[in-house]
């Protein structure tokens, strides 16, 4: 199984290490020619969504990646990645892939002093560590979206079909269960 990791900016290396530890083959997408390689799933890492969104467009990656997502390639976004996947942002005019019908609030917990760590239930997995770094959360979701986790009443993980969006950073916690969940999605389990 081959997973492509968007590597234009952010903590892509942590995702790669996590996926490799689970036996996946991993490569990075930094420019258009990287998309020539076939892949079974795509990861959009944490980082700054404004930077990633801009680089996606200017490096010509945006449309081809959007087409892959729309045609059913499994995709997993964390933090900035969730923002890129959302249909709407409540406090920002940008819209990127519009692949997950949810409304996301950017920097929903405020500045770095608002960053925090929690342990909460993730549907189908159980209690897992969750690290929120200047994180967004999902304010509202369409009816057909599966809510996978909530913290203090706010949605922090959701899935619809091939699209998984999470507002925290499983890639930095040493717990592989969410990545395992995504690889199971890719395998169609």
């Amino acid at each position, binding site marked *: 199984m081959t997973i492509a990791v968007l590597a234009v*900016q*952010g903590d892509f290396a942590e995702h790669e290490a996590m996926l490799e530890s689970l036996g996946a083959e991993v490569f990075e997408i930094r*420019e258009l020619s990287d998309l020539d390689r076939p892949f079974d799933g795509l990861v959009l890492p944490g980082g700054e969504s404004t930077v990633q969104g801009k680089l996606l467009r200017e490096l010509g990656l945006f449309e081809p990646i959007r087409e892959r997502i729309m045609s059913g390639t499994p995709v997993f976004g964390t933090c900035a990645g969730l923002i890129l996947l959302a249909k709407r942002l409540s406090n920002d005019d940008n819209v990127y892939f519009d692949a997950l019908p949810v409304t996301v609030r*950017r920097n929903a917990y405020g500045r*770095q002093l608002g960053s925090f*760590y929690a342990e909460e239930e993730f549907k189908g997995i159980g209690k897992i560590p969750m690290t929120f770094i200047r994180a967004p959360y999902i304010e509202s979701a369409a009816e057909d979206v599966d809510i996978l986790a909530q913290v203090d009443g706010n949605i922090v993980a959701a899935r619809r079909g091939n699209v998984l969006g999470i507002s925290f950073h499983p890639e930095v916690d040493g717990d592989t269960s969410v990545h395992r969940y995504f690889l199971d999605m890719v395998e169609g389990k």
Partner: protein
Amino acid sequence: MENRYELNKNLAQMLKGGVIMDVTTPEQARIAQEAGACAVMALERIPADIRAAGGVSRMSDPAMIKGIQEAVSIPVMAKCRIGHFVEAQLLEAIEIDYIDESEVLSPADDKYHIDKTKFKVPFVCGAKDLGEALRRINEGASMIRTKGEPGTGDVVQAVRHMRMMQSEIRRLVSMREDELFDAAKLLQVPYDLVKYVHDNGKLPVVNFAAGGVATPADAALMMQLGAEGVFVGSGIFKSGNPAKRAAAIVKAVTNYTDAKLIAQLSENLGEAMVGINEQEIELLMAERGK
């Protein structure tokens, strides 16, 4: 507090592969964000102007920093003087995302750095070599950058510092375990940090390049030498076309091995900052705080 330190190291992880730009006004901050900066450093004067003006250089006016916080959605950093823990307390009070305890400002303490373990907000500190980097980390820094020589537009010292750190890291990795005790003594740092570097082949925190980066090629050079991201200070807003240069540097950092692309990015950028050569510098900021 341990937990807070992890969160602060994690924020630096999110900045990786990005460019942090010095800005002095909300307008510049917006230009930087628009150009793809992953964070901005709010300061009253960029290093080149601090160098030109001389005199004592201090933390910026909190009102000016707040103006920049309101102008952008990306993280905002600000500088305090080395050892000036009250300036750091003020920056924490206005909820800055990252404090740079910086040699660019006049040091407030010629012996002690700030005990950064006492703060909730993260700190980035400059270093010329592995010993300095690990001492700052021991004091609680959750991100390191090379000192370089700020405000010169000359990359030579950032190159020297990054090469020095990487070479010392490789040396530690190659050592027998029983040699690490002596290495800790020589580096004047705790053994457990030396052991971490030996085991992992890298610093326990993110390591950026800073000081003298002026062109897309400079930025890519630092990335190829092992930097995980780049600070650009005077290089952008002291140049002919800041927005274009800033955007070009951002792309050069993402695709730092693609020479063809960087060549394209380097076309018609307008004038780079004039710069000062190493031999012409009167004040070596990198010698502040060891």
